[in-house]
């Protein structure tokens, strides 16, 4: 069983290198025109996706857009109020702005923190030759369990007044602090929690590092390049496509964070950790303002789309694609 597993998984790993496997398909296509039979079976196979797309994605999105112009508390039917939700959000809702600022701060610090951390650990692991598998598994573990409620609950106690973190500080003779009770520090406990789950980014970076041909380093060493130069001239440029992918996924993740602020701090103290999704959840499912919640969802979508577009647009300047890799 074990050799078979590794055999198969290697063929997955190989995919990025042998990307152009589409050629045979095209040859096949030109030989045979798209027939009615093929159309029918094609649509049959993807029919679950199409049903899901229309009923569970497209229709809800359109409905959500409509709702954002209404007032609706689940009783009766939605009342059209035009742009009122949006004007209220931007001009008459301090909590909206607070949650927006908190979310930008949270994502703006936590995402780079996690990525840089993941990259540094991946670089360190790439240098080592023995026990790499063990370290990799152990360091990936926080990522595996990180999303669960148990971890958020544990985190709350870890940074509590008489939790382990303060206990350590006391042991070292340092002043303890009410980390979760102080509006200035509470958000940092969430940021550290986010950074702690650097495992999957680390794995992606590690795989990216393995794809860089050794000959580049050998050649540059012959030319007298120092390790730092090698890092900035070879490693980092060649990793940029992987960094781009990681960044896009993590930015979306960071903006959508809900569980940590719901469980660890429940938005407090003094609303200092009310992340955007938590506020949206409260509006929609605690105050039953479905229209207002939908309007918030749309604002969020626009922000995320804009950020993603920004990252992709700027990527032309900093992402380096190897000639052979397209």
């Amino acid at each position, binding site marked *: 069983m074990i050799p078979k597993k590794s055999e*198969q*998984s290697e063929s*997955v790993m*190989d*995919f*990025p290198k042998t990307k152009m496997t589409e050629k*045979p*398909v095209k040859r*096949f*296509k030109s030989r045979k025109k*798209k027939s009615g039979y*093929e*159309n029918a*079976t094609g*649509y049959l*196979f*993807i029919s*679950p*996706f199409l049903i*899901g*797309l229309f009923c*569970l*994605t497209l229709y809800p*999105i359109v409905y*959500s857009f409509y*709702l954002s112009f209404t007032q609706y508390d*689940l009783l009766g039917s939605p009342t059209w109020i035009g742009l009122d939700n949006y004007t209220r959000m931007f001009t008459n809702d301090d909590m909206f702005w607070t949650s927006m600022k908190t979310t930008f701060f949270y994502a703006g610090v936590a995402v780079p923190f996690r990525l840089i951390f993941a990259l540094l*650990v991946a670089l360190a692991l790439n240098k080592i030759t*023995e*026990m790499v598998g063990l370290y990799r598994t152990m*360091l*990936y*573990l*926080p990522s*595996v369990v990180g*999303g*669960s*409620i*148990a*971890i958020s*609950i*544990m985190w709350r106690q870890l940074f*509590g007044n*008489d939790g*382990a973190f303060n*206990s350590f500080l006391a042991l070292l003779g340092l002043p303890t602090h009410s980390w979760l009770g102080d509006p200035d520090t509470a958000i940092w406990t969430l940021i550290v929690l986010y950074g702690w789950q650097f495992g*999957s980014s680390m*794995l*992606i970076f*590690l*795989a*990216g590092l393995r794809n860089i041909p050794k000959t580049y380093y050998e050649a540059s060493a012959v030319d007298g390049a120092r390790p730092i130069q090698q890092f900035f001239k070879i490693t980092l440029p060649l990793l940029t496509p*992987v960094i781009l*992918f990681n960044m896009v996924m993590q930015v979306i993740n960071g903006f959508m964070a809900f569980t940590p602020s719901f469980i660890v701090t429940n938005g407090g103290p003094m609303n200092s950790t009310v992340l955007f999704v938590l506020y949206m959840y409260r509006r*929609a*499912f605690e105050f039953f303002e*479905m229209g207002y919640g*939908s309007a918030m*969802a749309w604002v*969020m979508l626009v922000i995320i789309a804009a950020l993603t577009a920004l990252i992709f647009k700027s990527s032309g300047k900093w992402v380096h694609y190897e000639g052979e890799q397209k």
Partner: protein
Amino acid sequence: MNTQNKKLKKFIQHTAMIVFTLIMLYPLAWMVGSSLKESSSVFIDAHKIIPDVFRFENYIEGWKGFGGITFSTFFMNSFVIVIISTIGSVLSSTLIAFGFARINFVGKKLWFVCMMLTMMLPYEMVMIPQYIMFNGFGWIDTYLPLILPTFFGAPFFIFLIMQFIRTIPTELDQAAKIDGCGTFGIFFRIICPLVVPAMMTAAIFSFYWRWDDFMGPLLYLTTPAKYPVSLALKLFSDPNSVTNWGAMFAMSTISLIPVFIIFFIFQRYIVDGISTSGLKS
């Protein structure tokens, strides 16, 4: 250089790596350790991992749950939801992936782009309208809103399995065709058996996500007897009412055991799955 130096360098590297790994794993060890401490001593010298007295009773007390519902119920609920939705998403995603990877039909490009876009779309975007929809169907406090959507494929899994199917030579399909296999025959006899490793990866991810899913049960389930572990744990650990800290840590620990088991058995699949999906750009 001389071997002495090399050995020293290696020693330093490994020491640093081990210390770092231990620091990263400390919170988990602390949780397990605290689950065996006496409730009154959890927060005295809180940093200690190994309790002075091992109290396994925490697990028995914690398992009793709350409101007369034991954790047996919550675990059963979680397993029902997780297993059905995992089967649903993996099977449907395999079907869809085959359609996209191997059949040429009109409009394939368009639907493929749609799928990639939905992969980027956060769930929170459709959360409110879906809730209203399912509420209208009278599905609140049932498992339908948690399970049914998984039967329409998950874009990430479709993509993962598609990548895998593309590595299977099309010559195999053509050979089967010559031997009289139709499209369905090719799917069931050729592709399905070969694509099992990718299905496994998808199943493992699905298991994790469903097991950890909190938002779904929080929105849709109202009867405590129907709660999965994640939501039950939240109530069980309500900071205003918890007094038995040991039991709370015990149940938190236990809720992670299925995740750990799956992880240690199948870690190859997981590591490769992540590495591949991350390198697609």
